[in-house]
């Protein structure tokens, strides 16, 4: 079930709630986006609309490139991607069971382990959405 997840109001509402919870778990979260694997923004916190749309597209490409590298090296699918820079991290990972990805930017105050941990929680939280119920 992947059609128009970004336009499904139940999915969008659930994504917003998951991101709010995500923010409450990490003070150093800059902004975060939940996106479809083909690059449509579902919901975002912080960041302006143009930026979050753009991040959604880039995160989609990154995820696919990660998958391509993992596939080429016969490692399976790419679970998450970390981009580390002097002033922070970007972590993105798949939402289990859905064609969705969560991408989050943390400032450098956060440890990488903590950032990854809360991002996983958010992804699992998002995975609780019942698309079937929403469709009904």
């Amino acid at each position: 079930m992947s059609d128009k997840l970004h336009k499904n109001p139940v999915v969008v509402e659930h994504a917003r709630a998951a991101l709010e919870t995500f923010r409450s778990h990490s003070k150093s979260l800059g902004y975060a986006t939940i996106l479809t694997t083909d690059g449509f923004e579902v919901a975002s916190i912080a960041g302006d609309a143009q930026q979050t749309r753009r991040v959604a597209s880039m995160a989609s490409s990154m995820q696919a490139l990660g998958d391509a590298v993992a596939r080429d090296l016969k490692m399976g699918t790419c679970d998450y991607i970390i981009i580390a820079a002097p002033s922070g991290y970007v972590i993105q990972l798949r939402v289990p069971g859905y064609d969705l990805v969560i991408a989050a930017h943390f400032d450098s105050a956060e440890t990488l382990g903590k950032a990854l941990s809360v991002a996983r929680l958010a992804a699992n939280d998002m995975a609780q959405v019942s698309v079937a119920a929403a469709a009904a």
Partner: protein
Amino acid sequence: MAEHVILFAGPMCAGKTTAIRSLSEIETISTEAANTDRETADKDTTTVALDYGEITIGDEDKVRLYGLPGQRRFDFMWRILMERAVGLVLLVNNDAADPLGQLAEFLEEFAELHERGGIVVGITRADIAEGPSLGDYAQTIAKSTSGAIIPVFTVDARDGNHMQTCLLSLIANIESRAALAYQQEQAA
């Protein structure tokens, strides 16, 4: 080793991924994701980063074939890959709603590449759907590029010979322009 980057661009469903598969001598690398935008294109998956294939020529040259995502939201990939590119194979699906408009849009987007390299246009699905004629496409090209003579062919992206024709025409045109530019410099 010299690299020659050739891009494959065009709207969704134009056949870019297939075209690269037809030409590449390595197993192509694809970055496809489930397509959630069935209104725009009714297909299961769509390229979201790039496709990659290559042709190696001896020990000296490698032709790198990059397919770009068709959707504008991925235009950052267009910019990234355009920097290294010398040429563009622009594919347009003849049974799209507005193929001439799409052609003009992509020509404008890749005008810089036309200026410093070259472009060839391939019209896919021309044998299946009644659409604009090649003359119509040529006119659109001329309007979009101040009268430039860009090769335009009907192609089947699955046909290796067709795609070879596109690639060779592109290279021939680029090198011919370069030769003329060189002559102009010499004459100046």
